[in-house]
């Protein structure tokens, strides 16, 4: 009987504590969803390489579960007072890093862009790392994109004309000009063969000024790499660039960065 009384007392205490300490908020939870995009672009002109990392999107935070009771308002106040901040990591060679945009409410649409540029030497490659992140003022990074990396360079290649003309078209004006596509092969030193970039054909004026026999081509190129160890994940790919006639027919010191 004594033990039965003790057990009853214990059960009463547990019931009491359940009623007063176990509020309904324990049955509620934050329901979080997000929709973010990260866009990393790069380009080059005659002097610089430019990179841009954009993070754009929004999150949604609501209260899930039933029977929230007074805990609902506490959680709603937390949502109302919290803010989200967009950050974009844009590291180009030795410059750049994290940049952070204006913060907004947890359900706000956030859009932030981090731009960087570096004076680029011909043939030198630069590592471009990027990532996007959304930080919450009362919690932690609620969104972190996968980190990515690539090598960028402004490649230069010397080309030798094969003197084959195709797709010619006249440009009529005070002086009539004839342009044609001319096929070419690379003309680089053994140490810089194969070059990272090769474009053929190239469009040249063939009349009234004849096309050159040798020319240099410059173009922005990129190669995906492992962000951790820098291991190449693919070949160099190059955008269309620009060309100038070469002064002579000697073998060129072309851009050659195989690793």
């Amino acid at each position, binding site marked *: 009987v004594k033990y039965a009384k003790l057990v009853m007392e214990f059960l009463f205490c547990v019931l009491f504590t359940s009623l007063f300490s176990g509020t309904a908020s*324990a049955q509620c939870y934050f329901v*979080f969803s997000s*929709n973010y*995009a990260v866009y990393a672009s790069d*380009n080059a002109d005659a002097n610089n390489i430019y990179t841009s990392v954009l993070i754009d999107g929004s999150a949604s935070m609501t209260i899930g579960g039933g029977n929230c009771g007074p805990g609902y308002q506490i959680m709603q106040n937390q949502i109302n007072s919290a803010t989200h901040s967009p950050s974009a990591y844009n590291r180009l060679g030795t410059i750049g890093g994290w940049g952070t945009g204006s913060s907004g409410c947890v359900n706000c649409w956030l859009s932030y862009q981090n*731009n960087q*540029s570096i004076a680029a030497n011909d043939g030198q490659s630069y590592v471009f790392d990027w990532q996007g992140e959304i930080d919450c003022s009362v919690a932690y990074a609620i*969104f972190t994109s996968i980190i990515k990396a690539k090598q960028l360079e402004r490649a230069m290649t010397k080309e030798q004309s094969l003197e084959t003309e195709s797709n010619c078209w006249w440009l009529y004006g005070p002086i009539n000009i004839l342009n044609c596509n001319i096929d070419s092969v690379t003309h680089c030193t053994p140490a810089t063969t194969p070059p990272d970039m090769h474009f053929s054909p190239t469009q040249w004026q063939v009349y009234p000024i004849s096309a050159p026999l040798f020319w240099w081509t410059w173009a922005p190129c990129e190669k995906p790499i492992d962000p951790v160890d820098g291991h190449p994940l693919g070949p160099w790919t190059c955008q269309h660039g620009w060309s100038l006639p070469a002064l002579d027919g000697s073998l060129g010191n072309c851009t050659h960065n195989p690793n």
Partner: protein
Amino acid sequence: VSQKITVTLFSVLVFVLGAWAQTSPPAHHHPDIAVIDGEKNPELIPDATAFRLWLVSVSLTPNASEQDRKFQEAHLASLHLTAPDHLALLPILTDFKTQYLNLIALFNEAAQKGVQDTKLFQAQADDLVQSTRAAIARQLSAVGAANVEGHVQGEKKKITLHVTKEAQ
């Protein structure tokens, strides 16, 4: 008596643990996130999304700095536009930026009051992208407009989308 004290102390302990559980942060329910990597699957990046991101990235507000304009010039150079097409594109981009920032401002004003409509915003953003593409097709030469369309398709490989399954 000692047994009564033990039971009482144990009950107080249960009460304290319950109170601690009450004051600890509520649980977060994070649905599964779908990652679409444009480098691997560019075909899964919607056209409207790719254009929106490209337009946001290369467009400027009317009071943009000289440095911003250099960035814009460098990014637009890869379109290989003629001078008239280039000049026609600049005000289209500025107009897009102005309208997009207005859309965000309106959405965020509603979000701060807790009455945001994300689907409506995305539909409005898609409409803005569509009208901007139409303006590019109308005001640039056929070759210039095709260059823009082709360039943005190629940019899909530089986009990563992170979408929770409920938001898809």
